[in-house]
């Protein structure tokens, strides 16, 4: 069970980290001047948030190898590539979580007064410097509560990856329940492990929030 818990955490952390990148790119794209880019990312967030997670996991698990091999053929590689359960699971969860994070970051970015961006331009900051010095520190603080929710759902979604046979908490509980004929004990144990992980991480996010809002006065 300890190894399985570690696997759950690994999948969740990898997926969440990838989703952070997707979310940042997605929010930038959704706020961009170009209509075409906005439409593409609107489509992405609508589909990724409107289609069941399980369906997306099945798609990437069954279709992942085919897609990767198709891409590899374009680059001249004709061998067989297998996408394992781990990468399919991480890819699926990060795609789903990335869509939610896109919305979180977009909301946070919109909450920053336009005057600050104009002021940064006025003192001669380049786009990159403005992004790094003005946007990122404030957006991160405003996005933290939303990111906390995204992390919790990523953590809980890892349970769905068990359908692909990846040995994380849920799969381990399934196997143990089958061999011991004590399903109640092992699913309760799985529930407790998840409860521990979610409680522990929401405590962490609360700490992070109070750290990020130090020096910010609230009503």
């Amino acid at each position, binding site marked *: 069970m300890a190894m399985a818990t570690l696997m759950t955490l690994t999948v969740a952390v990898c997926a969440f980290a990838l989703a952070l990148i997707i979310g940042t790119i997605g929010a930038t794209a959704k706020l961009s001047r170009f209509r075409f880019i906005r439409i593409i990312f609107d489509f992405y967030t*609508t*589909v990724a*948030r*409107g*289609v*069941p*997670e*399980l*369906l997306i996991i*099945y*798609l990437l698990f*069954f*279709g992942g190898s*085919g897609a990767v091999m198709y891409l590899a053929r374009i680059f001249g590689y004709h061998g067989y590539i297998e996408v394992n359960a781990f990468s399919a699971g991480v890819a699926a969860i990060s795609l789903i979580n990335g869509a939610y994070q896109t919305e979180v970051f977009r909301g946070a970015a919109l909450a920053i007064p336009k005057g600050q961006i104009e002021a940064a331009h006025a003192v001669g900051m380049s786009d990159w410097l403005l992004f790094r010095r003005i946007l990122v520190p404030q957006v991160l603080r405003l996005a933290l509560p939303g990111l906390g929710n995204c992390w919790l759902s990523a953590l*809980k*979604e*890892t*349970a*769905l990856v*068990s*359908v692909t046979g990846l040995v994380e908490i*849920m799969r381990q*509980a*399934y196997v143990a*329940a089958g061999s011991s*004929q*004590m*399903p*109640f*004990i092992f*699913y*309760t144990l*799985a*529930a407790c492990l*998840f*409860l521990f992980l*979610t*409680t522990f991480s929401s405590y962490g996010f609360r700490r992070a929030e109070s750290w990020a809002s130090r020096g910010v006065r609230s009503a």
Partner: protein
Amino acid sequence: MDFDLMLDSIPQILSGSRLTVLLVTLSLSMGFVLAIIAALLRRSKIPLLVTPIKAYVFVMRGTPLLVQIFLIYYGIGQFEFVRQSIFWSILKSPFWCAIIALTLNTTAYGSEIIRGGLESVSWGEVEAARAVGMSGFLLFRRIIFPIAIRQALPAYGNEVILMVKATSLASTITIMEMTGVANTIMAENYRPLEAFIVAGSFYLLLNFIMTRLIQLIEWRLSGHLRPPKLSSAPAL
């Protein structure tokens, strides 16, 4: 892309959609009623009622739905006395286990949303209702409840979408709803994209209908907040 396979899978997935819709409507309607009860108990000042509800919400929101489904479907049957009891005819059916798990899950999330709505009802409204002589259940039914629901609706709409998506987990306990059917088609033909596109479109359509329904209810509940309709066109 194999368009024939896509066309073939439409009727199959459509037949699975009946179970999806049934799961959604049954669990959402029961979950809504239970969520209101749970929210009211949570707001009562009786610790003996508040603490269990708090614990319940904490556990249901802190564990994945899949664990809850498996615990109810596989877990409870471990005990001999359950299998001997009259409830066994319900608990051995995957359909009812899915309904129970989905209902219990949405009750926890829904109760927090409705609690937020109830807390947003301003005391002035209650005072005004008391002033005209309303009290007890009438006050709740005519004043507090409609205002609370209107406040809670946008968040409850999100919960509805999440529930539509959550019904897909019923496929893990052998229920052939849309995801279950799509998964079979994927595995049989080893062509995942076609089945995914068809099933995914149905889910998007279902979610679109759900959001529209919520918007309609929201519109109906906020009539007094809209500017009055002018009977004659204003003179320009």
